[in-house]
């Protein structure tokens, strides 16, 4: 997909990006003084999820409509590792990440055999398959999910059942992953990915094996979505079917769209907006779905750059 936010000159200078990044870190560091930390951790988990998804859509031009399968299955993996095997949280998150990475390798290898709309449909169908799988096999606990997952002790030292310690843990994971995505986007690999997004045939004619690049992007994206899912299951001490359901795949598309696809900070803003909205509208039940649908329609028809994309466009800088 085209990303109007990126102009070639703006991509050169990154100094302003560091300013925005520092601002984000500052906000996340002091916010727990006023805002409920669990809510902030939820925002960070979804922000990471959306950033991972955006790596694929915004920079690779691949719309996956099944990213919930990576979020959800990593959640199950981490919850199982923590509750049944008693692993430390850092290993649980790593386990979830690798598990989702492996799953995305298989799914990606299948899905990149078709392009565009078919790619979206295939990922959706495969994630539905994963959903039924999670519903049927015993270790996920079916409709109940895995409940009362212990957060464990980080490195065997720091007890994460304390929300403050957990907050720092989630913050570090989020920031590290964000920096990693940033690095990937601006690496030669990221540039080739953008070239494939703009014109796949041309990239092929330049000698790039486009399928391999797309697959690598898919695996990175899936694995990071797994990191988000694993962390989320530790935060809420719960892994459930909600996270593997297709509505979750729709939500991450919405977050990215609202924030601005193809921008680095967009998905973070989008996740914050959507999670906040869900929080305030939760008592309205199915109206939340309606509101989300309306936002989808508005974004597609009139607001395709998204919040951050719009700002970036005004400032003529990439964000």
């Amino acid at each position, binding site marked *: *997909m*085209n990303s109007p936010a990126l102009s070639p000159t703006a991509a050169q200078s990154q100094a302003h990006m560091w300013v925005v990044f520092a601002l984000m870190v500052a906000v996340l560091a002091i916010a727990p003084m006023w805002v409920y930390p669990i809510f902030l951790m939820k925002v960070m988990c979804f922000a990471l999820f959306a950033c991972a998804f955006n790596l694929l859509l915004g920079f690779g031009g691949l*719309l996956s*409509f099944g990213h919930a399968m990576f979020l959800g299955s990593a959640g199950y993996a981490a919850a199982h590792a923590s509750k049944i095997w008693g692993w430390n949280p850092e290993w649980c998150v790593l386990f979830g990440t690798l598990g989702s990475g492996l799953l995305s390798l298989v799914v990606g290898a*299948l899905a990149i*055999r*078709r392009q*565009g*709309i*078919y790619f*979206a*449909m*295939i990922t*959706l*169908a*495969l994630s*539905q*398959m994963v959903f*039924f*799988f999670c519903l*049927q096999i015993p270790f996920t606990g079916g409709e109940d999910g895995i409940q009362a997952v212990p957060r464990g002790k980080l490195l065997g030292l720091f007890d994460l059942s304390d929300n403050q310690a957990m907050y720092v843990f989630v913050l570090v994971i989020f920031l590290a992953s964000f920096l990693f995505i940033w690095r990937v986007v601006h690496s030669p690999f990221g540039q080739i990915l953008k070239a494939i997004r703009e014109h796949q045939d041309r990239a092929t004619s330049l000698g790039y094996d486009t399928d391999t690049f797309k697959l690598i992007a898919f695996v990175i994206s899936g694995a990071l979505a797994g990191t988000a899912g694993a962390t989320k299951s530790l935060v809420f001490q719960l892994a459930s079917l909600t996270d593997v359901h*297709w509505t979750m795949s*729709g939500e991450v*598309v919405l977050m990215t*769209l609202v924030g601005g696809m193809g921008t680095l900070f967009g998905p973070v803003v989008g996740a914050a907006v959507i999670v906040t909205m869900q929080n305030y509208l939760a008592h309205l*039940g*199915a*109206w*939340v*779905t*309606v509101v*989300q*649908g*309306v*936002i*989808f*329609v508005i*974004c*597609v*028809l009139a607001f*395709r750059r998204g919040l951050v994309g719009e700002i970036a466009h005004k400032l003529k800088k990439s964000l």
Partner: protein
Amino acid sequence: MEIFGIPLQAFMGQLLIGLINGSFYALLSLGLAVIFGLLNIINFTHGAQYMLGAFVAYLSLTHLGVNYWAALVLCPLVVGATGVLIERLMLKHLYKLDHLYGLLLTFGLALIIQGLFRNEFGSSGMPYPVPEVFQGVFNTGFMFLPKYRAWVIVASLVVCLATWYVIERTKLGAYLRAATENPSLVQAFGINVPRMITLTYGFGVGLAALAGVMAAPIYQVNPTMGADIIIVVFAVVVIGGMGSIMGSIVTGFGLGLIEGLTKVFYPEASATVIFVIMTIVLLIKPAGLFGTQK
């Protein structure tokens, strides 16, 4: 009498259910294929429009006393008209953009429609009576075949084949196929392509609504009925490839049958068998059984 250790009656019963499901897969994937052919948009709202068809039938029966036969004609027209509105007001602005925006817009619309109906009717199902003519069963000797189910299979076959005939064998269909290949050239010959696109979308949506009306007496009318089926239909479309109308019909019925057979021999896999087949087809023939890779 038994087949592979399964009582014949149970075997045929599951096959029948498979055929019924297949009828709906065929009708829905046919509509998706027709829309995709001309608009290059995957209509994510298709499931919601199928559900709308069933609901319009249910509501017009309970509030206005419109019977099944009238509903069979009216619902596709009403829901098709809403489709025309959606195309004129929204979709038409997206044709110059990446096709994925069409998918996102129709996904949003599906959320809105399904959310509104869930608010109004909850998620429990509403029963729709089987029309009087079709109450009762045929005794075929080896099994009892409910009359209504037989009707659904025959009717959807007829509708599918009629659609195939119109598109592949008539002049109107020729215009349609030509516009699929090269819209600007067809327009240069004095054919109103934008109107054709609008009506095509309306027709595809009408097909979904028709499927919804036919489904109402079999499955209960409920707000989530469309969301459940649409993902399976997407897989059906990937398996068949959207290039051919006949392909959608054959794949739809075929996969319904396979799903039914799976219920007999390995019930645990019946929810996933179509996705597994999709995976296999992608490995062997990525363009789909009847598709051509562009």
